[in-house]
């Protein structure tokens, strides 16, 4: 660990929230260092070939990967942003506020930032069932990466597990890639994603089995089928077991916030089911209980990419303000605008749950 780099704002994670936070902080003249563990910036956006919802402000009607390109274009306009890809933040050391990083396999260095935005995203959840170790059982993120980033067709016939937005959207994208979708199983009694996403795949002949789950994967060396079954109110399998011939089982059963660095930093954490796991307590402007650390995007609670981008912007403004960059009027103006957008995005049926979750982890303001 030879080098110690100093920076005003370190952004950890180069997805929609991190890129937005970096752009916003940079626009106030902060020196920004962004680290991204993947080979490319953009996070999950680069795999999203569907058009986004929201309003013009969140670029509704634009495909996800295009939004990533637009954010990168915005960032490239700032000379004060340094982005490292293939670079993982491996630890936070509270005693001196240093973040350790490893780039590629063996290049270690330390960063000492004045402020940090944790935009570390999320991890996919899995559910246990016999044979779930077989090749052919994928997370939805991996299927999207294969198809939409590398242009590799993951298989010929898929069973999708989960009818949230990810399960529904990835099913649609699989059909676009020429993969047959044998069906989608969903444990709840209605689809969890947007109804219109479900309608899109239904009219292409994809059955959605509500109150069903996968009970077993079939195959010796790799997946050759799956067994699905209805479940009762207590999620216990009941009734007839149905076999489906598939060579891929795609898991889209939810995400959990990636929060290890927040724990390391000693941020006050709270378990919020509506936000899908442990999240940091934060004030309205995304500052955690640690006065130098902010959080944004899925790391702050699982939500849509459109809200992640707005949260990133809010965290960006707020860090700049804490560093004394920019005018009070400008901060207030931008924050008011971003809060208005967030409130709009959360005003619908799906947003109700998010708001309920946020009420459990948002504080009025931190005592200074």
């Amino acid at each position, binding site marked *: 660990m030879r080098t110690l780099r100093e920076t005003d704002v370190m952004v950890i994670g180069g997805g929609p929230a991190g890129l937005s936070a970096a752009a916003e902080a940079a626009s106030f003249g902060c020196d920004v260092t962004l680290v991204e563990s993947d080979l490319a910036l953009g996070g999950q956006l680069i795999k999203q070939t569907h058009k986004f919802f929201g309003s013009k402000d969140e670029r509704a009607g634009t495909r996800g990967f295009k939004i990533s390109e637009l954010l990168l274009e915005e960032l490239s306009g700032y000379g004060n942003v340094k982005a490292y890809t293939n670079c993982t933040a491996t630890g936070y050391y509270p005693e001196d506020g240093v973040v350790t990083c490893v780039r590629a396999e063996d290049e270690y260095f330390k960063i000492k930032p004045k402020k940090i935005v944790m935009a570390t995203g999320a991890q996919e959840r899995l559910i246990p069932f016999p044979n779930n170790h077989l090749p052919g059982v994928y997370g939805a993120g991996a299927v999207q990466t294969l198809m939409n980033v590398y242009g590799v067709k993951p298989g010929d016939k898929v069973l999708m597990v989960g009818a949230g937005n990810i399960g529904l959207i990835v099913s649609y994208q699989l059909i676009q890639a020429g993969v047959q979708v044998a069906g989608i199983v969903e444990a709840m009694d209605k689809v969890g994603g947007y109804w219109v996403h479900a309608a899109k795949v239904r009219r292409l002949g994809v059955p959605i089995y*509500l109150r069903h789950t996968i009970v077993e994967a079939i195959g010796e060396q790799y997946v050759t089928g799956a067994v699905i079954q209805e479940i009762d109110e207590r999620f216990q399998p009941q009734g007839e077991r149905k076999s489906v011939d598939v060579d891929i089982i795609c898991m889209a059963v939810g995400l959990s916030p990636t929060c290890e660095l927040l724990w390391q930093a000693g941020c006050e954490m709270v378990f919020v089911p509506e936000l899908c796991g442990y999240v940091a307590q934060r004030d309205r402007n995304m500052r955690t209980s640690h006065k130098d650390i902010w959080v944004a995007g899925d790391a702050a609670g699982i939500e849509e990419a459109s809200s992640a981008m707005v949260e990133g912007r809010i965290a960006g403004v707020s860090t700049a303000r804490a560093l004394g960059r920019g005018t009070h009027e400008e901060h207030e103006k931008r924050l008011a605008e971003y809060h208005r957008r967030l409130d709009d995005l*959360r*005003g619908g049926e799906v947003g109700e749950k998010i708001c309920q979750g946020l009420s459990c982890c948002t504080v009025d303001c931190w005592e200074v």
Partner: protein
Amino acid sequence: MTDKQKLFNSGILTEERPGAVSPPRDLWENKKNGLVIIECPQRIPCNPCHTSCPTGAVVPFDDINDQPQIDYTKCTGCARCVAVCPGLACFVVDLTWGDESKALMKLPYEMLPSPEEGRQVDCLNREGNVVAKGTIVRVTEPMHDKTKVVQVEVPKDLVMDIRAIKVV
């Protein structure tokens, strides 16, 4: 839960609901170029149908989560919303097209193979069942973003069933 409710919960529209209503029949019958049908029965944060509408037929939203309401006197059947809607929930139906038994539908399409004019296609209902054969009349890509708007001649009595095509 009723079977109808179950179907709806899995993404099949079973009856008219707020955000999913059909045009007034008398206006629709004689409206050259057609009128839009939007099937958006859930409050979600999304408004491109309104912001892209060149005539103001999709009336302004108070809240971005509002469901689209249509002023059918203003709709020209231009199908811009068909091309723009991220939910692929807009469809234009022209009942004045062709002879008595035919109608023209303008449907969004993002699949392969590419649709070609003059070609016969399968017409699918909301559950993906083939309910008729149709003929592609015209293919456009209004936003130049790979979402095509395919104009298909279909049997008139099936315009409230057909919601997609399959190019075979």
